[in-house]
């Protein structure tokens, strides 16, 4: 079958395109396992059901499609935040531009270093959460990442932390093909905030495996920059212990192709998770895909998915979200909303909300809407003297704001509000 050959030729080619240095035995085994897995699955192709709304070609093609640098004079996101700054240039850790790998309550090192150590706690997580997340839906790009990534951070929060770890991704070469893999462990009762920002590379594939143990809290806020030609595939694998809190928010603006997958699994009771996203696509061919899979396998857990997309000038937004409630996961509260705001007739919002429930005492709801700017609200604002373009921006920001407000830190959410408002203002230039 020609199509199948294409899938497997592509996965072989991708595996061959990256040099994998030697590492500790456990690291090589994890990589080998992922590579085998990938060879079995093959690379994603447009025909795959899970890629029905997003053509993966740009994420798998070789040689790497070029992405011109997007030059701007903006202050990097999160620069105003008191944080430990860690910089990756085209997916490679840059110690010179980074702060020291040190933070109270945190063990922090590069993936490169960790994968060389014969004994390391990351052994139980690296490639493990990713492998768990391959079932029931295959995620070949994540397997590829585990198989070949050498760059990333290994972060373990052992106690209370008072500042975030802020990872900044700089895109510097127009053909860079980056593989970044982070392993995060938040010990019982500990807390950690990880911020990510920037386009990363011409093509950027990142995986974060986050193990949030009992009573721990993990916050993740990410902004994916405005580089028009960048291509990005990310996977966040989260495992939640009892009474834990997991929050992840992503703002995506432009970029020719973005696929963000979040795969969460509740393994202990009374835990809470929120995955949110706000995206703005303004241009022909800009394509954003948020794909979420939440598995409830414990009692009394709460999950929220809140995604908002504003689209115009031919941009496309995709949402695929699933809540799976396994047998016995009683008292689950699952919520999911995805909304598209289309500013013209050329843009598209495609949503596939799914619930699959095998427990009988749960409260799950999902909704998906698509619409245009509310004429009555627009008239109300303009009748007070607000120019139409500004009034429209206010309504767009208000719409996205409902997703941004899912960030449980007012300084961070305010920062994102302000950045979005600045971007809109620039557009009117």
């Amino acid at each position: 079958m020609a199509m199948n050959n294409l899938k497997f030729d592509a996965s072989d080619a991708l595996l061959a395109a990256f040099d994998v240095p030697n590492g500790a035995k456990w690291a090589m085994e994890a990589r080998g396992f992922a590579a085998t897995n990938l060879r079995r699955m093959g690379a994603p192709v447009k025909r795959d059901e899970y890629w029905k709304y997003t053509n993966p070609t740009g994420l798998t093609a070789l040689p790497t499609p070029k992405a011109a640098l997007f030059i701007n004079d903006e202050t990097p996101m999160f620069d105003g935040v008191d944080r430990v700054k860690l910089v990756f240039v085209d997916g490679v850790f840059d110690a010179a531009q980074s702060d020291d790998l040190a933070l109270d309550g945190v063990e922090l090192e590069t993936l490169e270093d960790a994968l060389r150590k014969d004994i390391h706690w990351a052994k139980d997580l690296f490639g493990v959460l990713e492998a768990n997340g391959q079932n029931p839906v295959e995620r070949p790009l994540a397997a590829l990442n585990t198989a070949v990534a050498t760059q990333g951070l290994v972060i373990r929060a052992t106690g209370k932390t008072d500042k975030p770890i802020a990872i900044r991704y700089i895109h510097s070469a127009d053909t860079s093909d980056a593989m970044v893999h982070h392993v995060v462990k938040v010990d019982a009762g500990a807390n950690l905030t990880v911020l990510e920002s920037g386009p990363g590379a011409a093509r950027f594939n990142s995986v974060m495996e986050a193990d949030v143990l009992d009573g721990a809290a993990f916050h993740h806020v990410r902004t994916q920059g405005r580089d028009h030609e960048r291509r990005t595939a990310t996977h966040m694998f989260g495992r939640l212990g009892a009474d834990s809190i997991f929050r992840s928010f992503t703002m995506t603006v432009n970029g020719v192709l973005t696929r963000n997958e979040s795969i969460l699994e509740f393994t202990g009771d009374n835990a809470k998770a929120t995955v949110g996203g706000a995206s703005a696509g303004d241009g022909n061919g800009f394509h954003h895909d948020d794909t979420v899979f939440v598995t409830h396998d414990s009692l009394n857990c709460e999950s929220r998915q809140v995604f908002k997309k504003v689209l115009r000038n031919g941009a496309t937004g995709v949402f695929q979200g699933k809540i799976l409630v396994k047998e016995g996961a009683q008292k689950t509260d699952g919520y999911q909303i995805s909304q598209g705001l289309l500013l013209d007739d050329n843009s598209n919002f495609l949503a596939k909300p799914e619930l699959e429930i095998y427990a009988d005492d749960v409260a799950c709801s999902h909704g998906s809407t698509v619409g245009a700017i509310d004429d009555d609200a627009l008239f109300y604002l303009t009748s007070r003297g607000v120019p139409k373009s500004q009034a429209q921006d206010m309504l767009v920001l208000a719409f996205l704001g409902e997703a941004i407000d899912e960030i449980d830190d007012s300084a961070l959410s305010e920062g994102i509000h302000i950045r979005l408002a600045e971007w809109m203002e620039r557009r009117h230039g």
Partner: protein
Amino acid sequence: MLNIKNLQVGLEEEDKQILKGVDLNIGEGEVHAIMGPNGSGKSTMSYVLAGKGGYEVTGGTATLNEVDLLEMEPEERAAAGLFLAFQYPVEIPGVGNMTFLRTAVNAQRKARGEDDLSAGEFLKVVRAKAKALKIDADMLKRPVNVGFSGGEKKRNEILQMAMLEPKMCVLDETDSGLDVDAMKLVAEGVNALRDGKRSFLVITHYQRLLDHIKPDVVHIMADGKIIKSGGPELALEVENNGYADLLAEVA
């Protein structure tokens, strides 16, 4: 101030004429009231003056201080000095009331070539005006009109009017949905803005509002036309006898 000549308006999407030749002249500092049965075209006239979409002007003119209103965008009409207090103020989730007010005030100042009010100045002014209308800090912080009671929405309209300091205020059934105390509060807010120069067009069903906001001229509108104009006593006549007699008189 406001001059309307033979204004004829239909709906854009269906062949229906709503205003069939309205003539109205409101001088500087005057307060005019328009009363009339449901469906006579009162609200349509207020929307058309403010520039709402969905209507088609098929004839006539409307000018504000000799400037053609009908050719302008809604925001230009506002900057020119027109203000419409909505019968049903729109709820706008996610937009803070205060942000909205400041944006509107500064947008109008900009359109008129004036400098922005600083955040401090703005806050001082808005607090004083809000207090007079019994609008508390919490209402200012909340999203525009979201979760406001009927009375709060109308007071919020008057606050916007007070902040924007328009030349010509059109109040579309500002008394609807208000209890007696709320109506008095709103009327006091309006009266506080009467300075001998600012003009008002008060659209209402009931004479009661006009006890509080005393009009110079009362017009009766029916079937898209002003059928009778007179002094405040005309409102009392409507209150006592309804519209039937007036309509019969004209017919």
